[in-house]
């Protein structure tokens, strides 16, 4: 058969005409959706900053404004629930703008038949999380949809924070020579959700890292660290965060894989599923771009806080290839750390 071998290939799939789950996966398809549908419709200087929130000037004061919706399944998972996520996620987006989180709104879309007791537990979690993060929930909205038209409960929160300093913080402000600091081990939220969602039992429980990050940010700013850029590492994980910043700032980012902490249970679970922890979601992890001269002091500030006690330096900003993230592998070779197309999918073998 060997002589009649043909070099053949399937037809391409062009643009998707319907929304796929992968459009929400934090990868390249989501970036395309945002660019082609939302940015092209709403473009303005504040949106085009592509930050975790918008930075607004009003009567001489600066504010950060952000919103996020929460659709996590299951509603309760090891280390948190949809309520803690809805508060901390929005608090963290404000913090990543260099703002002190102050006020949140909470919108609930409830499906007919949801037990009131479930709702009360989630609301109690939100109250607790808001108290811990030092924010008030000051306005809200409730809608009920028919059975089958929603998945028990969706939450949206928007947040407003105050910016009491004049430092420009954002993806565009990352500089060549910056050190990149990470506040702890990666992948716990994503793998905690994966394990309960799919009934996978791993050795040792994996708990979500869901936590507010504003204390770290305020600590860095108050100590006079010249923070250039902050990013929380949610969907798409560290790889997505670094790629978005590299593309926006037109810089090359280089990280050392062996410097990135991943706990043993998360590594084990990722090995089984064929996942790379660098792409797994977190809800209490962030990176900070700071000048080399401030790096040691910034690390000490992060490590003094419980949510930063695993802080470490993972890489730096280079100049050679703008828009690119590179990684030194565990065995010392260098490669690209790319965005995924969509979600990570467990592999066949």
């Amino acid at each position: 058969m060997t002589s009649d071998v043909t070099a053949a290939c399937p037809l391409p799939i062009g643009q998707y005409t319907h929304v796929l789950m992968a459009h929400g996966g934090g990868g390249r398809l989501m970036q395309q959706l945002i660019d082609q549908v939302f940015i092209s419709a709403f473009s303005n200087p504040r949106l085009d900053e592509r930050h975790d929130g918008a930075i607004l000037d009003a009567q001489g004061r600066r504010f950060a404004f952000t919103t996020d919706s929460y659709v996590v399944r299951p509603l309760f998972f090891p280390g948190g629930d949809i309520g803690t996520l809805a508060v901390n996620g929005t608090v963290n987006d404000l913090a990543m703008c260099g703002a002190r989180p102050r006020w949140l709104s909470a919108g609930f879309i409830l499906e007919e038949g949801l037990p009131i007791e479930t709702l009360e537990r989630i609301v109690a979690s939100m109250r607790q999380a808001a108290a811990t993060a030092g924010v008030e929930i000051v306005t809200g909205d409730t809608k009920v949809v028919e059975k089958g038209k929603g998945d028990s409960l969706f939450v949206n929160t928007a947040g407003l924070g105050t910016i009491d300093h004049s430092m420009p913080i954002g993806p565009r402000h990352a500089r060549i020579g910056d050190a990149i600091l990470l506040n702890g081990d990666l992948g716990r939220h994503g793998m905690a959700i994966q394990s309960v969602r799919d009934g996978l039992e791993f050795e040792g429980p994996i708990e979500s890292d869901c936590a507010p990050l504003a204390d770290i940010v305020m600590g860095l700013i108050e100590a006079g660290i010249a923070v250039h850029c902050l990013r929380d590492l949610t969907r798409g994980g560290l790889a997505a965060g670094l790629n978005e910043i590299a593309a926006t700032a037109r810089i090359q980012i280089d990280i050392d894989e062996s410097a990135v902490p991943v706990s043993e249970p998360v590594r084990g679970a990722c090995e089984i599923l064929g996942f790379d922890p660098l792409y797994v979601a977190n809800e209490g992890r962030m990176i900070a771009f700071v000048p080399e001269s401030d790096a040691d002091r910034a690390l000490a500030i992060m490590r003094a806080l419980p949510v930063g006690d695993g802080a470490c330096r993972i890489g730096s900003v280079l100049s050679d290839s703008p828009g690119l993230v590179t990684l030194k592998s565990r065995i010392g070779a260098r490669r690209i750390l790319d965005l995924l197309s969509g979600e990570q999918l467990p592999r066949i073998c």
Partner: protein
Amino acid sequence: MKFIDEYRDADRAQECARAIARSVTRPWTIMEVCGGQTHAIVKFGIDELLPRDITLVHGPGCPVCVTPLELIDKAIAIASKPGVIFCSFGDMLRVPGSHTDLLSVKASGGDVRMVYSPMDSVRLAREHRDRQVVFFAVGFETTAPANAMAAFQARREQLTNFSLLVSHALVPPAISTVLGAPHNRVQAFLAAGHVCAVMGYHQYEPLAREYRVPIVVTGFEPIDILQGIRRCVLQLEAGEAKVENQYARAVKREGNLPAQHMVREVFQVIDRKWRGIGVIPRSGFGLSPAYAEFDAERRFGVADYHADEPSECLSGLVLQGVRKPVDCPAFGTRCTPEHPLGATMVSNEGACAAYYRYRRQQEPHRSL
């Protein structure tokens, strides 16, 4: 982590690479058959540690890549039928058929579910007796025992609403095909450790003798792969051609006999079409006559589907190791993971996707 850390140790890897460099006196071309090994080579940058005289080429061992187009079309047709629960491993969902993919079927209302084990789909069949549950049984010899077990269990429980869409490929006939091709330049093989964990490696001994090629059964971690390459090089330099087992912590010569027994119970060896390559005689598993009632192709009347694959991309040559992904003019421009021209760009383990993801800025490689 045991069995991981010691096989990803930077110092050991560098030492192993130096040992290879000391052994090499002239250029050699070695093929890793398995997509998992291709992925590891590119992800860890193993080939960058090797001397320039060693060329690694990537073989046809990615199950997603070699699943023929018409089989994807069959899966899409079945998954689109009302009342069907279509179960698949995750990485098959994005593979394009002639017109669409399984993720799009799901987005249009089809009940397409990602499972982690074929036994999950048997459980679904048990729980949903009023629905037809179909499992997309894809893979090489590695996944065959578990897929066979699903059929065996379904028959034992008389789950008449369960069936399998089978696309199993076998490694030794693919190696024969590569070696028998007139343009072949491959001089040694890394055989896939997990395939051999199931089937053993005695099947490779006649190939090594007949074609005079070293074949080293190799694991998937960086040190495994470097050791496998080193053993190939030592044999090549010494003019030897035998089967060696680098992956002795998981592989025995005779393989896993109970697993092989289960495979023989449910499957028979058949001729099979490989995407991008064509039909290879006796290169796949199909359901044996005793399990014909569990054949989804028959149950849903899709057995005679045929799809012509347009001859635009080089994936057939890439799958045989004749071309590197970066040699293709469409690579990274008209062909990307979002808009794949070929299966090797779709699957995570496909050579083109691995190159795109980890080193798309690399200059075109010297062609074989």
